């Protein structure tokens, strides 16, 4: 008999009268065997997290649940709370996506791990402390003996995730549910966390239900994979089988949509679009009542870059390395020191009004397509706003036709103009975002992780769109990302940033073929996990 057997699981949310009930999970069935790792793959909103939460009886209260969840011979659907409490954390444990919010900021880490042990065992406090030390050693927290009284905010993202894992394995659970445990941490840390999970699984013999949207992780770690799409579990099987011969169209679509391809061929011109010399963004650290400056946070430290026409500069680095700051400093959206030259004009000392003429030529596209569009404006207003500022002489009709044109260009229908941004999916929103920037026909666009908030299948489409626009209008991009797979598909030249400095730069092929700096090597290893 399987350790966990889920049969025809359904989760339904009722909506106000005219709307139909929302079927979040529609008949998912799968089994989990002792000691195996099952990956649950699907796009956001496909119901994968809800399915996992239901296994612990933690589905939202508003949801109506039906079907069977059989855990070691015991039915968990509609089981009494007391039973579920005895199972949660003891026999089925869970790791969440965001360790900062999953840990209580007011308790020390040892207190939080100890609580897990205390809840489910009869150990004395000394035995518990010994167990906490053992667990922290197992999860490899550096200097753990001195850091028992550390609070979550004193740890890095990766370390917090290690503490979360220690909490989850505290009672040697039979099943560990990991809900995208590496999405919120940097790529280099991601790899270490995954290796840790795999090692712990081998050692403790637990089954892992691993929820992710990252196919590289699935290929590397999982034994079997279950694919979910729009609430339905469409395919399940051995990883090797599914990847070699995907049966369901959605799985096929998912597999071909991993970011691939190469950058556009370079044109032979050397017209510099934008360049910066000795660019610095230092944030002062102030102390005392009078705000004495005692030091600086060097977000961007003396960088010089040059971006020619029809060229993509890839900027790579982990969070906090200053890559976004660099992009916004170039656009003069953040104060900076140093010289910025845009098509031969020094724009670094221009005032807001003088700068306005240049705004039309340089535009940003943001990471989060949900935060970058005003929820109270229609698509027409969002895209038309820039036209109003820079082309006030346009008649209403001309403006409308420009909006239609750009919508078609980014692959949307002009019929959507009167709708609000929240009616669209993430990918469509990112297209609207791109349309807002492109309708002005800029020369230079800063793309701040334009794909990282999107589902895998959409990422490839957005990349293709960006490349198409670049070819058509000779655009120059600054492409900021932490995902080297995406960068490889679009960038001609790459700079690797680490704590405000460029640690390595060069043509893309050179960097990928022969990375010099240790940090670059770690990034490449993390991104491709060995399979090149």
């Amino acid at each position, binding site marked *: 008999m399987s350790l966990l057997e889920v049969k025809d699981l359904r989760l339904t949310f009722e909506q106000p009268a005219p709307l139909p009930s929302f079927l979040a999970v529609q008949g998912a069935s799968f089994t989990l065997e002792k000691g195996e790792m099952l990956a649950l793959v699907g796009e956001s909103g496909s119901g994968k997290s809800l399915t996992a939460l239901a296994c612990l009886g933690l589905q939202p209260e508003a949801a109506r649940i039906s079907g069977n969840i059989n855990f070691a011979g015991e039915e968990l659907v509609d089981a009494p709370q007391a039973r579920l409490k005895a199972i949660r954390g003891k026999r089925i444990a869970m790791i969440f996506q965001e360790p900062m919010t999953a840990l209580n900021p007011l308790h020390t880490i040892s207190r939080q791990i100890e609580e897990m042990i205390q809840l489910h065992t009869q150990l004395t406090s000394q035995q518990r402390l010994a167990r906490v030390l053992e667990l922290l050693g197992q999860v490899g927290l550096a200097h753990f003996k001195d850091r028992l009284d550390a609070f979550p905010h004193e740890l890095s993202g990766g370390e917090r995730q290690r503490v979360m894992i220690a909490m989850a394995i505290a009672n040697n659970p039979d099943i560990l549910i990991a809900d995208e445990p590496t999405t919120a941490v940097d790529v280099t840390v991601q790899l270490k966390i995954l290796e840790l999970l795999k090692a712990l699984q081998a050692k403790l013999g637990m089954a892992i239900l691993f929820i992710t949207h990252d196919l590289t992780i699935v290929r590397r770690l999982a034994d079997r994979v279950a694919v979910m799409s729009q609430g339905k579990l469409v395919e399940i099987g051995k990883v090797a089988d599914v990847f070699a011969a995907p049966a369901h169209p959605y799985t096929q679509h998912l597999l071909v949509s991993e970011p691939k391809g190469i950058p556009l061929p370079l044109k032979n011109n050397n017209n510099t679009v934008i360049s910066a010399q000795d660019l610095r963004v230092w944030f002062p650290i102030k102390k005392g009542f009078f705000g004495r400056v005692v030091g600086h946070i060097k977000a961007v430290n003396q960088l010089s870059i040059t971006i020619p026409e029809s060229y993509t500069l890839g900027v790579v680095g982990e969070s906090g390395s200053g890559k976004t700051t660099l992009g916004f400093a170039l*656009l003069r959206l953040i104060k900076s020191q140093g010289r910025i030259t845009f098509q031969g004009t020094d724009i670094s000392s221009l005032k807001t009004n003088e700068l306005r003429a240049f705004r039309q030529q340089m535009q940003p596209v943001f990471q989060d397509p949900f935060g970058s569009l005003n929820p109270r404006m229609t698509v027409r207003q969002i895209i038309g706003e820039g036209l109003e500022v820079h082309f006030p002489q346009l008649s209403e009709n001309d403006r409308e036709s420009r909006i239609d044109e750009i919508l078609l260009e980014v692959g949307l229908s002009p019929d959507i103009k009167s709708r609000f941004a929240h009616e669209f999916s993430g990918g469509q929103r990112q297209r609207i975002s791109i349309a*807002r920037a492109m309708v002005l026909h800029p020369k230079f666009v800063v793309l701040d992780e334009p794909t990282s908030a999107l589902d895998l299948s959409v990422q490839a489409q957005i990349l293709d769109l960006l490349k198409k626009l670049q070819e058509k209008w000779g655009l120059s991009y600054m492409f900021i990302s932490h995902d080297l797979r995406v960068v490889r598909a679009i960038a001609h030249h790459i700079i690797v940033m680490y704590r405000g400095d460029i640690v390595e730069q060069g043509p893309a092929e050179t960097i990928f073929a022969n990375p010099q700096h240790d940090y670059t090597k770690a990034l490449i290893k993390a991104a491709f996990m060995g399979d090149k």
Partner: protein
Amino acid sequence: MNLSPLSRRRLNLFKSNRRGFWSLWIFLALFLVSLFAELIANDKPIILKYNDEYYFPVFKAYSEKTFGGDFETQASYRDPFIAGLINDKGWMIWPPIRFSYTTINYDLGRPAPSPPTAVNWLGTDDQGRDVAARLIYGFRISVLFGLALTFFSSIIGIAAGAIQGYLGGWVDLVAQRLIEIWGGLPELFLLIILASIVTPNFWWLLGILLLFTWMSLTHLVRAEFLRARNFDYVKAARALGVAEWRIMLRHVLPNALVSSMTMVPFLMSGAVTALTTLDFLGFGLPPGSASLGELLLQGKSNPQAPWLGFTGFIVIAGLLVLIIFISEAVRDAFDPRKVLKA
């Protein structure tokens, strides 16, 4: 009506709170009726016919001589002599309550305050004035005052909060300290002192109270602006070169207003209470004005006439309860986490 799905959701949420929904209709009905107080409670007929001509005494003053009386003064239609003259050659249609809020009923037959009768439905106060009539006028002025105070303090508060939050830095720092000092002033005593220097009328009271009530929304709007000025879509607008004041109006303000909207009805109940308090203490509207606070004061001074106190209490409590129920429904409607029950 073309509503965005979000507005439609809010409207549905508001309607689904039955208590608040019905409170709103009852409140609106009462307010509408009280707006026509002159046609409901007045010491002049609405319309009269005299010598085949029509007269509208509520809207226009006629002298006694018009109806064959002796004096140039305005006709007193309640005077049996004048009424007799008119009824001989025509007819009069009276409002349902034949007293205005200042009319003194001289035919009481017993010392004022007199208990409820068929003539004085809710009795009279200690000066022989009809309580029902005073109630209608008092209700009207309370609601109008509440609406006006809420409106003006919202406008000032939102503007002040918006400027502080959007500009941040020194402006914010200095303005916040000033507001803290201003907010620390003993409001009630200042009001009483000010009210004894000037003879307060409706607008004076509005202005004086406004000095202290505008701050209630400022903190909220300031916080919303501080948050929203770093949103990606605000950055995007800045990158598009949109002027700062336009970013404030178009991108930040509408989103900051949502949280303010949940507060506004509560401000209204505070405003009504403030006016009632001042009237009750005798520092409010000028003597003789119809007001709910004054009615309460009468109830306190005349415990032997319980209809005064009861009437005042029931009407004020009812009015505040209605506003609070509406406020709760508005608050629910703007709550993004509220789930509609199927």
